[in-house]
């Protein structure tokens, strides 16, 4: 058996980049999901069309292509290169934000019509209506699909190894595999385990949010699916 401690240390060197990409990507995803998702429901046709083009365009092309486009093609057009890790965060956010927009749109639309009518009858302003009545109920619906989306995003951070980001997968592929070739089996198993733990952490965090959001609505225990 090789030296598990050494492998772990080498993989841990990649952890900061993986974490920055995941957390940064999630933050950008959430912002874009809400902006684009609510824009899909806008009364203005122009706003809806712009948002729809963003959503379909990003969902219709491949994430790897988007990454290479931002990393290799964009610098040719704008004249400067984005730092690889931030190019990664940008692509992860833009791509998953397009999927998240549909989650937000679906959840807002699933709030019963009576809730809109009730808020209207109380003469709440459109902003109050959204913020105080519709969104708190919609958010509860959004959390489980967002959990899946965030895990997808975490898994996509491995793609950043293609653009020279020193994250966990690149550490395994470029450092460990050439150095400890007879031990690829335990090394890659360890690498997979790294991501499994991060996925479980995301799920645990989202479950806690689900319970908190449910309590806020006075729903008590939310069934854990």
């Amino acid at each position, binding site marked *: 058996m090789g030296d598990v401690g050494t492998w772990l240390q080498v993989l841990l060197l990649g952890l900061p980049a993986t974490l920055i990409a995941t957390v940064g990507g999630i933050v950008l995803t959430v912002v874009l999901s809400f902006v684009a998702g609510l824009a899909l429901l806008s009364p203005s046709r122009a706003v809806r069309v712009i948002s729809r083009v963003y959503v379909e365009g990003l969902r*219709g092309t491949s994430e790897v292509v988007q990454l290479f486009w931002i990393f*290799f*093609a964009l610098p040719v057009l704008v004249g400067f290169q984005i730092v690889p890790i931030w190019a990664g965060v940008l692509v992860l956010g833009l791509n998953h934000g397009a999927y998240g927009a549909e989650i937000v749109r679906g959840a807002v639309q699933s709030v019963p019509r009576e809730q809109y009518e009730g808020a209207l009858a109380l003469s709440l302003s459109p902003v109050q209506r959204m913020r105080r009545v519709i969104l708190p109920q919609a958010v509860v619906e959004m959390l489980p699909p967002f959990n899946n989306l965030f895990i997808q995003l975490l898994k996509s951070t491995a793609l950043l*190894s293609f653009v020279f980001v020193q994250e966990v997968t690149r550490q395994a592929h470029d450092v460990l595999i050439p150095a400890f070739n007879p031990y690829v089996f335990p090394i890659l198993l360890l690498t997979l385990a790294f991501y499994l733990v991060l996925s479980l952490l995301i799920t645990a965090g989202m479950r806690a949010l689900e319970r908190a959001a449910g309590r806020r609505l006075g729903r008590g225990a939310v069934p854990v699916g």
Partner: protein
Amino acid sequence: MSWDWNYVVDVLPALLDGLRITVVATLLGSLVALVLGLVFAVLMRGPAPVRIVVRALVEFVRSTPLLVQVFFLFFVLPQFGVTLGALVVGVVALGLHYAAYNSEVYRAGIEAVPRGQWEAATALSLPRSRVWTGVILPQAIPRVLPALGNNVISMFKETPLLIGIGVLDIVGQAREAGNTSFRYVEVYTIAGLLFLVLSYPAALLVRRLERRVGSI
């Protein structure tokens, strides 16, 4: 540096050749995923040890990156004496990864079949295999076709990560061309458009199917 149409014409055959590889990988990978996913879903209703092992495998595959799984098969299989070409490894990895996702889809479809159907099949003392093929699956599968279709489209867009093991798909060809010509804007824009041209109509088709069968 402006857009060069002559270069686009020059590079297009290579990109289309890459597209062929992408489509082949997607179709074969989907075939594996559709069959294996169904096997997983049926096993998940089997006796406890089998159920637990399959459940754990599915969760593990779904929680870890496809790229690392691709590396895993590519580097580990030869150590056990199994040497496969990069494209074959890619098809197996894509198939296994999406089989995990498809098994969840099938499971939802199977659970949506009313209990009475199981009871009726049992009352008719149909053999177990006949219950599945004659009663349950014919009702479960049509309802989940849109979700299975979506997974095919997702796989199509994920095949480019096979460049990690040297498969020359659309993106592999685009990268080779870009690295010699430095015309990154042209190659990656065309690569993106090729994906869009195939996946967007496919997505519209799936949505139409969704409206027809009603989603679950």
